[in-house]
């Protein structure tokens, strides 16, 4: 049996990869045939009477909430297997059973969320079919074949999930373990493909392709799938899922840390929280750049959508986004600073914390400084306009790019100090190595600021946007170069045991804050992304003529998303509790 599984499961995982590669061709073929059979109709022109009513239900709010819940749970159940697979592989490579234990524990926690994801998906579909039948009919005519593939991959994902979970203990080591990892890969590949397919539908509604101005489909579904935003959206959501999964696992660990009394268990959950948070923050580092690409593509596609997004109506939601991301960075740093106490040498770095905090806070304030200010009439009269003469330049993207890169560098510095809290290098060139690292940081900061100031404010807009690339490259270069140097510098270092579990309870609340911030951000920015279509179902092709075809106020949107966040987090807390209850029962049975 073991031998057979050994051969079949990795093959199954490998088979999924070419399937993904040929998907576009299959889509094309399907619709080439379909196009021959039938001419496609233009997008329907609807009136308010074409939108069914059901009781006193507000259709937009119903669909909005269902979509939001589905997206949160879907992100959770897509993120967790990525995270679990990473941990499992690391555990095998490092031969450390702790990783395996944590990975399995979390897969178990996420099981309940799978069924809720399916339920919320069903509710969303129901809402769309009931309230927006013409839109669904139009989208189905274009994406019908992808919807069938969606169902197929949903089936593959479910099957892989069950084999992955129930096979965990039956495939504990050797070749079977690698076979199990192969199933995990299949699970992730199918889950990610599901997301990519759904992304195609969503991005088509924003930047339609494969249709003419009247919405007549050209018959090639691959054209519609590979629309302007599909690539950036796929990348952004994929990275974000890893970060999100890490943050939720870290929150679970924090929940357990605060609840257990036993020192060994406390140490276990402390380690789990740290590892999960490391993955979350590691994935968070490239996320702003993926987001920047997505936004630049939105601007490039439509000036109107771009300005609505960041310069006009929704600019203040971006300020809220900046505030939440900044808070997230502060929380991540606070967690690392508190963790310095785990190492015996941690105390020697306490004195640097206030300087790091100062730089991060200063960068944070620049990061969320708005360009268009909220002014009292007296302030408006004193300033003569909506822009502040001193703070105005800080409201532009070059300042934001500069600030976020510096924030990332100093967060990385906190991480370096944390790593050194229990390591003392023994190589002769340690002091020179420190000097080189310091020089790298200094040169990087000078370069980032120069790029931001010179290209951002003294050249034209093409260079201004392009200068963000070398800024990011500088940050990434310093991170990679310092990690390589740290590796060689600490290869034979004196390493003391980290005191897991010896960390203030306060630090665990930082992990909660990170998870909540991620959730809230996803809701707010998801709303903005969707709402920049304004009164269009499919931007510039199919007009939304329902009674709800108006953009709600920022306050209303923020309330809906915030209530959604509370409901979702309450459900996640319930899942944690449920899982813990099952574990306690299981332990008793054993």
């Amino acid at each position, binding site marked *: 049996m073991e031998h057979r599984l050994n051969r079949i499961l990795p093959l199954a995982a490998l088979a999924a990869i070419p399937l993904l590669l040929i998907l576009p061709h299959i889509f094309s073929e399907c619709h080439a045939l379909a196009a021959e059979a039938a001419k496609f109709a233009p997008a329907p022109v609807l009136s308010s009477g074409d939108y069914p009513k059901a009781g006193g239900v507000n259709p937009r709010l119903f669909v909005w909430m269902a979509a939001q819940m589905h997206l949160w749970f879907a992100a959770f159940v897509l993120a967790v297997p990525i995270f679990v697979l990473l941990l499992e592989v690391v555990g095998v490579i490092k031969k450390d059973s702790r990783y395996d234990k944590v990975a399995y524990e979390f897969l178990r926690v996420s099981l309940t969320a799978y069924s809720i994801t399916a339920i919320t998906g069903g509710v969303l579909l129901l809402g769309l079919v009931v309230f927006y039948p013409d839109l669904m009919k139009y989208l189905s005519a274009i994406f019908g074949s992808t919807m069938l593939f969606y169902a197929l991959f949903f089936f593959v994902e479910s099957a892989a999930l069950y084999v992955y979970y129930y096979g965990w203990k039956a495939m504990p080591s050797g070749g079977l373990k690698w076979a199990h990892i192969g199933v995990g890969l299949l699970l992730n590949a199918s889950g990610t493909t599901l997301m990519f397919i759904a992304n195609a539908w969503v991005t088509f509604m924003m930047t339609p392709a494969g249709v003419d101005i009247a919405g007549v489909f050209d018959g090639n579904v691959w054209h519609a799938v590979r629309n302007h935003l599909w690539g950036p959206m796929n990348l952004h959501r994929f990275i974000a899922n890893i970060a999100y999964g890490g943050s939720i696992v870290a929150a679970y660990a924090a929940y357990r840390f605060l609840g257990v009394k036993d020192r060994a268990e406390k140490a276990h959950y402390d380690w789990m929280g740290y590892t999960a948070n490391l993955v979350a923050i590691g994935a968070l580092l490239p996320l702003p750049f993926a987001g920047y690409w997505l936004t630049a593509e939105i*601007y*490039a596609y*439509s*000036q*109107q959508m771009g*300005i*609505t997004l960041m*310069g*006009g*109506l929704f*600019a*203040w939601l971006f300020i809220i986004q900046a*505030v939440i991301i900044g808070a997230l960075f*502060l929380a991540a740093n606070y967690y690392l*600073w*508190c963790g*310095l106490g785990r190492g015996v040498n941690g105390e020697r770095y*306490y004195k640097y*914390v*206030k300087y790091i*905090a*100062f730089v991060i*806070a200063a960068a944070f*304030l620049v990061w*969320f*400084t*708005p*360009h*268009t*200010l*909220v*002014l*009292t*009439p*007296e*302030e*408006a*009269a*004193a*300033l*003569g*306009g*909506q*822009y*502040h*003469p*001193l703070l*105005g*330049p800080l*409201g*532009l993207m070059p300042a934001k790019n500069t600030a976020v890169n510096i924030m990332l560098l100093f967060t990385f510095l906190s991480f370096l100090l944390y790593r050194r809290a229990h390591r003392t290098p023994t190589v002769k060139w340690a002091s020179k190595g420190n000097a080189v690292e310091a020089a790298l940081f200094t040169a990087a900061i000078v370069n980032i600021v120069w790029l931001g100031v010179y290209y951002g*404010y*003294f*050249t*034209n*807009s*093409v260079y201004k946007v392009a200068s963000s690339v070398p800024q990011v490259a500088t940050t990434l270069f310093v991170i990679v170069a310092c990690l390589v140097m740290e590796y060689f510098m600490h290869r034979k270092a004196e390493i003391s045991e980290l005191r897991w579990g010896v960390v*203030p309870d*306060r630090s665990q609340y930082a992990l909660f804050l990170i998870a909540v911030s991620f959730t809230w951000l996803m809701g707010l920015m998801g709303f903005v992304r969707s709402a920049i279509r304004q009164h269009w179902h499919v931007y*510039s092709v199919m007009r939304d003529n329902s009674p709800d075809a108006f953009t709600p106020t920022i306050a209303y949107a923020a309330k809906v998303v915030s209530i959604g966040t509370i409901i979702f987090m309450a459900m996640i807390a319930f899942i944690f509790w449920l899982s813990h209850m099952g574990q306690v029962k299981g332990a008793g049975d054993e």
Partner: protein
Amino acid sequence: MRLLKFVLTCLFFYLLLKAPGLFLGKPVPSSLIAMYMFFIVITVLLVMTITDDGAEKLFAPIRSLVEDPSKKLIRNVVFVVVPIVCGYAVYDSGEKKAPPTELRAVHPAPPAIVKAYGKTFDLASIGNPFRKAEKEDPAAFKAFVKEGSEVYFKNCFFCHGDKLDGKGHYAHALELRPLPFTGTDTIAQLQESYLFWRILKGGPGLPREGGPSISAMPAWENELTEDEIWKVILFLYDYTGNTPRSWS
């Protein structure tokens, strides 16, 4: 002592934020100060509580005030004074009866299309028809810019100023005042098609998100020809040394 340090640090940053208003007459908006101070206080608090010992020392005076029986008199005084001060602050803030603060998008999103001169313009795709002369025929381009400057000084400079700095003769009578075209945060941020729309339709053509519509900018479509508008746009960029936003 540590609590005092905390308060003084926060106070220092608060005064720093107040300084532009006090010394330069250019106040940092109260809404922004509130946001800044919220995170400054949080950051200082975080730095001071990374160890249990630090947190204990920071909160010790408050704990002592609440729990120490020997501080009964001070406790009672504080418990009376603090609510009174808070109450007065609320009362005082309500006394001014000032108009509400405003959030107005200075550069609201343009529509996808605009109609003028019996034509429909797609703002996503149109460009300045005279721009290509910049490379192909510099002498002609210079002439277009000069024509644009004449349009500007006959029509626009009264409000926007002879230096394009938003300080024209009439500017001081306007609320809000015209924005300067100089600098890098107004027209340098925008595509030429955006300026075309704003000049064409003026304040009356602002979308609702641009409201409260207090722009005094007239709609120039009845006063200027299409070519004149494109040429004055050339002049605005040329004079200020800015380059229109583009994506290639």
